[in-house]
């Protein structure tokens, strides 16, 4: 690596660095700074330094840990579901067959829908009074009368997770497909020569070659799931009875309903550290290098 290489690199990086430093870094540092103070949005001029006090309060708050549990469940379930469904779809789309264009076009539609519309759509489908889910199950004879869906605390989180997975699957599929396409056909040919059948090729050639794709998807989807907010806002507002009160909702409530900016920022920072740690762990586990 030469000095001119270093210069080239700096040059090429400069626009990105400029944008991020100017726009992203200030809010991030500001949030960290505010988490060290006892700040209420209603009295922004009268703040006191509490150091790690907000963090301590948060750790002692049982609602925080309940939210952590729900977020963890949501994230793990979402990532698993997305990985499985997206892998299956990517494998399917990797095949050459007639009508594949239709499928791949249709695939992009859930991704194109804004979360707001997605939330309203699923809310409409899950509606306990008029929803299509109830209607479908009733007509298929699987239920005798309309069930409560979002309002049933045992189902709430799972339903929101399904709506989230549905919308995230297209991007995950595409990312996996891009990885699949970069697998050289020579590898398949070699495996066939060695006598591997479909499953063997799948297990020993395809899946291992998709590792960078898996890593990318896992990191991205985990990050998205952990911080996801829109669906919780549209569908249940953290309810009923806190069944869907996850960390991102908790931050929203702390900051905008309880107007406690300091503790909201502290929780956000804890979430940020956890997210970063999670990404780092995934990178180390799955990636040979970044």
């Amino acid at each position, binding site marked *: 690596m030469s000095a001119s290489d270093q210069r080239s690199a700096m040059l090429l990086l400069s626009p990105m660095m400029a944008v991020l430093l100017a726009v992203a870094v200030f809010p991030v540092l500001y949030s960290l700074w505010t988490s060290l103070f006892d700040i209420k949005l209603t009295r922004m001029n009268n703040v006191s330094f509490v150091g790690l006090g907000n963090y301590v309060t948060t750790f002692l708050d049982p609602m925080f840990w309940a939210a952590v549990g729900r977020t963890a469940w949501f994230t793990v379930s979402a990532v698993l579901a997305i990985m499985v469904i997206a892998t299956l779809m990517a494998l399917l789309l990797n095949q050459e067959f007639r009508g594949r264009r239709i499928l791949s076009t249709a695939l992009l539609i859930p991704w194109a829908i*804004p979360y707001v519309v997605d939330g309203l759509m699923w809310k409409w489908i899950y509606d306990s009074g008029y929803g299509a889910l109830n209607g479908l199950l009733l007509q298929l004879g699987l239920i005798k009368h309309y069930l409560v869906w979002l309002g049933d605390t045992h189902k709430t989180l799972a339903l929101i997770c399904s709506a989230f997975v549905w919308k995230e699957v297209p991007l995950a599929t595409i990312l996996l497909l891009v990885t699949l396409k970069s697998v050289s056909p020579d590898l398949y040919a070699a495996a066939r020569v060695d006598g591997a059948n479909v499953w063997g090729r799948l297990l020993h050639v395809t899946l291992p070659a998709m590792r960078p794709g898996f890593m990318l998807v896992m990191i991205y989807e985990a990050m998205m799931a952990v911080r996801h907010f829109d669906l919780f806002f549209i569908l249940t507002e953290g309810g009923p009875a806190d069944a869907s009160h996850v960390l991102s909702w908790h931050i929203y409530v702390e900051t905008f309903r309880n107007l406690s900016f300091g503790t909201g920022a502290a929780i956000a920072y804890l979430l940020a550290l956890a997210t970063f740690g999670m990404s780092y762990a995934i990178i180390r586990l799955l990636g040979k290098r970044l």
Partner: protein
Amino acid sequence: MSSALLAKRLALLVGSVLMLMYVLGPVAWLLSSSLQREADITSIPPHWIPSPPTFSSFKAIIDAGTGAVSTDGNASFVPSTAEYLLPALRNSLIVASAVVVLNLLVSIPAAYAMAKIRYIGRDMSVYFMLATRVIPDIALIVPFFLFVRKLGLLDNLGALIITYLAITIPFSVFMLLSYFESLPDELDKAARVDGCSRVQALIKIFLPLAQPSLVAVILFTFLTSWNEFLFALMFTQTAASQTVPIIVASFTSDFTTSFSFINAAGVVAIVPPVIIAVVFERYIVSGLSAGAVKG
């Protein structure tokens, strides 16, 4: 071997049907609901196919968009913010397009550098970039709001453009970076031996090869900007700058509503991004051919 072939065909068919149902089912219901009358839409069990289908909800959107203010408040159970839907479409389009262009200008060089140049501080810069995205957006609202206000960009599309640029860059770079890394270094070296500078090598050699990844980034950036809700809610104040998600959300918390109208608004809201997605589909999925890179 024909039975194996048959089995494969069957598997493909079943897989395709399942996938189509999964992906399109809910959207089909959205579409169907938007074409039903208000009375039918709340029937139990639901009418799967609208009979009779009616375009009255869509008509209401267009009517509202042409700005005719109803003087008889009793007449409309169409949300009062309905007239902002079409202008919001325009706002969303402007913002999303601008973010895509700026994003590409910024992300491509950065990703290339991170993938192909072993410079000092490389790993750090990747982690730094990712680190700007680990903070949940809700925590960033107030500081972003203050920042935007200082720039005097409140209620201005520029605020959204800057914000969305900041939130889409890290992952765009990460996506491009992963793809560039899978492209062999020899290409780069060969080009430079021929007298190209790094930048020229990037433009002439790598970009054409990276088409699928580029398209993924374009789509990702466009759709993220189009769909973003939280920042738009906080930064925009009037119809002059409100984007589609905000307007659609306002329909549900208004004091009057019609379910078929909301569904119709949903359909209208997704038409542009779906068109974009369909147009670019051929460059991602169908445009990929295995082995082109390694060959």
